[in-house]
Structures are given as C-alpha cells and as structure tokens.
C-alpha cells in the first residue's frame, strides 16, 4: 500500500459503507494509495478486498484511537496522508422533543467532533518540523440538512452536527490556508446509501423525488465521491472554505 513518489495518499473515515466506501473505490481507480478507517471490521475487509485499500479499525470519537489511526495510516502509506475525507457519520431520526441530551451529544460527537479530531491530528502532524513541509486537502461531509428543515424525517441532532461541520469548514480553511491546507465540504442531498431512510416507503419517496429534487432521482454514492475527489485534487487548487452541494438541485429550489 505504500505510496510511490507523486502518488496521492488518502485517509477515509467511514470507509466501510456508503459514501466513504465510494470514495475508496473512486480513489483506487485514480491509483491513489488509500487507507480506510471504520469501526466495522467485517465490512472494512470487504472494501479492502474490492479496492486494495489498507484498513484500520478505529473509533472516531476517541482521541487516542484517532491519533493512533493517523500514525498507523502514515506507516501504511509511507508518509502522512495528503488527502482526508471524513465520511464517518450517523443519522438519528427522532422528534426533537423526544431527543435526549445523550442522543444529541452522540451525533455531534461522531459527525462533528470525529471529523475535527481527524483533521486536527493530521494537520498537527503536518506542522511538525521536518525537511519537507507539505500541505494537504481535507473534505468534510455536510448535508442538505445543514440548511434545510425537514418535517417528515426529523433529525435535529444531525442538522446541528452538519451545520457545525460547515462553520468548522470555513474556520479551518482560514486558519490553515497559510500551511497549504485546503478545507472544503461536500453537501449531499438524497443519496442511495445504507443511511438513506427516504425510500423506506417507496411511494412517498418517489413523490419526494418528483417534488423536491429537480433532477428527479436519487444521487449515487459515486457521484458524491466524484465531488470529493475533485475537491481533493489540484483541479480545485483555488477553492477553500467552500461547501459544494451534490443534491440534484434540491437546495436550488
């Protein structure tokens, strides 16, 4: 898995399923060296055999576990990652007035603090004095839920966690630009992943797609992964602090 000279070194969290897995697949096609992180060792193994990615089982909410994961990833890749996608996340559909403090904090901890921990650990390692200072590009996963309320599928903790991810994207982009670190977010709409609840009732799901998504279809995890790779590579060299919606136009209406 050790990267060859000039090869991109990518660390992906939430790599065992959905968007994280699709990012591993897309990067493998581009011949990037990839390490996937997830809690689910069994599914992670499947991603490894399908994509050739190296894997690390880790808990994104545990500071020590994250630091060990970043250091282990650097060993596997033959150098610190120069690209990070934090796709680990949970979606807790629940009425707001029935959401406990523990429910709320759990989602914020995984979705927001987990993304922060990986980004901070990576950038603090990059900042350590060395002969060859390098930058990196970071992509966080936001959601259309950061900007839109939703009556039929309430998830206040998720909305808050993704709104915080967007604010964090802007702050870290400014703070880390002098280090050559770009920080952006992708904001998916309704995407065909295991997290999707919309199509549990196919009739109401299809009605939603016709009424609320201009392109009238679900997005694929691969389409979100394409946007992640665009923001990681040099095609987006002058973009930082941006949130790129990948939602079939849902946020445009």
């Amino acid at each position: 898995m050790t990267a060859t000279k000039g090869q991109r070194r990518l660390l992906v969290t939430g790599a065992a399923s959905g968007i994280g897995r699709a990012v591993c697949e897309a990067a493998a096609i581009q011949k990037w060296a990839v390490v996937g992180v997830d809690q689910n060792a069994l599914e992670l193994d499947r991603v490894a055999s399908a994509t050739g990615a190296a894997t690390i089982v880790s808990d994104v909410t545990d500071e020590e576990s994250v630091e060990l994961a970043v250091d282990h990833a650097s060993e596997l890749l033959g150098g610190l990652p120069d690209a990070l996608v934090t796709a680990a996340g949970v979606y807790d559909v629940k009425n707001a007035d029935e959401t406990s403090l523990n429910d709320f904090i759990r989602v914020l901890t995984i979705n927001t603090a987990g993304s922060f921990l990986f980004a901070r650990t990576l950038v603090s390692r990059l900042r350590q004095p060395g002969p060859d200072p390098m930058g990196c590009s970071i992509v966080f996963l936001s959601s259309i839920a950061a900007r839109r309320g939703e009556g039929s599928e309430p998830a206040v903790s998720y909305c808050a966690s993704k709104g915080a991810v967007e604010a964090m994207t802007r702050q870290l982009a400014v703070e880390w630009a002098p280090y050559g670190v770009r920080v952006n977010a992708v904001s998916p709409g309704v995407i065909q992943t295991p997290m999707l609840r919309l199509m549990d009732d196919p009739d109401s799901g299809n009605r939603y797609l016709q009424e609320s998504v201009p392109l009238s279809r679900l997005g694929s995890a691969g389409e979100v992964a394409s946007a992640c790779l665009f923001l990681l590579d040099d095609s987006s060299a002058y973009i930082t602090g941006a949130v790129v919606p990948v939602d079939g136009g849902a946020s445009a209406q």
Partner: protein
Amino acid sequence: MSGPGTDRVALVTGAARGLGLGIVGELLADGWRVCGADINPAVSGALLAMAADADPSATLAVVADVSTESGCADVVEKLWETFGRLDAVVNNAGVGGPSTSVHETDPVDFNQVIGVNLIGPFHMTRAAIPRIIEGGRGGAVVNIGSILGQSAEAGSGAYAASKAGLAQMGQAMALELAPHGIRVNTVAPGYMLTAMHEEYITDLATTSGLTYEEAVTSLRSSVPLGRHGTPEDVGHVVAWLLSSRASYVTGQTIPVNGGILLT
C-alpha cells in the same frame, strides 16, 4: 484522445483572452470540441494557438457581439454548421464597468455592463438551449459569475448587480432545464490574473494612493490562500462542472476565490 468530453461540443463566449481562453484550454485537454466566440477578432489566433497540440478541427472561432440577439444567433448558427451538435455553453463574456458610486453612474455605463454581463447570457440562452434540448442527450451550462455577485463593495454596483443577476438567472434555468437533463451552475471567481483584474488594480491604486505593486500585495494579503487565481484554476472547475463527474450538481454557485469571502 479520450476524455470526459469526447465528441461533445462546448460553446465558450469571451474566448479571446483571460478566463475564457483558459476555459477553452481545459476543455480541449478534456477532449471537447470547442466553439469560441468573441467580439475581439484575436479570438481566431488565440484558439488556434490553444489548439496547437490538439486536432485543429476541434475548434471554431466566431467573431460576434454576444451581447446582442443577432450576435448570439449568428454564433449558434455557425457552430451548428460546423459541428452539428451542441452539449454545453459557458457564458463567460463580460466587462468590468465603472467604479463610480451608483448615484453618480452614467446610465449608459450602467446599461452597458448589464447588457454584456446579463442580457448577453439571456440572448445566448435563447439561441443555444433549444439546440441542446433538440439533441436529447442533456447537457450543461456554466455561467461565470463573480465574488462581487455574492458580496458587493462600494463602486461595484453595476458589475455586482449584473453578476448577482446572472447567478439568479442560472438558478432559475437549473430548475427549468432539469427535466431535460441540462444542468446549470455558476462559477464565481475571486481575484484573477486577467486583464480585467489589472484594470481593477490600477483603479484601486489610484483611489488609495498606492503603487500598482503595493495594491497587488494588499489584495493578495486579503486572500487566505495568499495568491491570485489563474485562468487554469477557473478552467479546471468549469471542466469538472461540464463533465459527467458533476452529474448530480445543478443550480449551485461554486466559489473559486482562494477563500476570500470567509473572513
């Protein structure tokens, strides 16, 4: 040559220099065939030079005033005669305009900025979009907006209004054209190394009593990434938005500004 744009045809306005020429270069590199339009006759030579390494039959230069209905119709007609298909439009042609306060701006100057930057893309949409719909293969439009279309500053009234208007027109088009599989997005550049921006720096230096170099340094220090953008920076993003890699992205404004609006 194979790439995301193979066999497909894109129309780029304002193609003789600056961002437009940079966009042409990236699209050619991606395998597109490109029609470049400009009021400046230098567009022919510029496109030929840009296509040096590519198949010369992959480009068509048309000298036309794309702020007019007849100019836009003429470009689309010539493009159709040559290529017989159209898949993408990049509305890039634009002018900088006056740096006066709105209440002191000559109506002729105001109208000229709106005419080129907003009404031109309107005419081009009417001329070009029916051809893309006719093709039945879907397509994509990118409008070149500006940071000033997202956040105005004193002395930018006409330009800011034209670019904000263009972004909103693009959002409406995205909703209208989604059923035809045509995606519409805006790219909003920040400070770019182009002739138009050099005029802006010269104005800034004059009004603030700085030398040209001091004005450049002052502008760069306001950009988190610490540099000006290049036509290639914008060209890469346009090429991405026009490609199938952005197949679920529509109705959006993508900022290409080094983070300047964050602080």
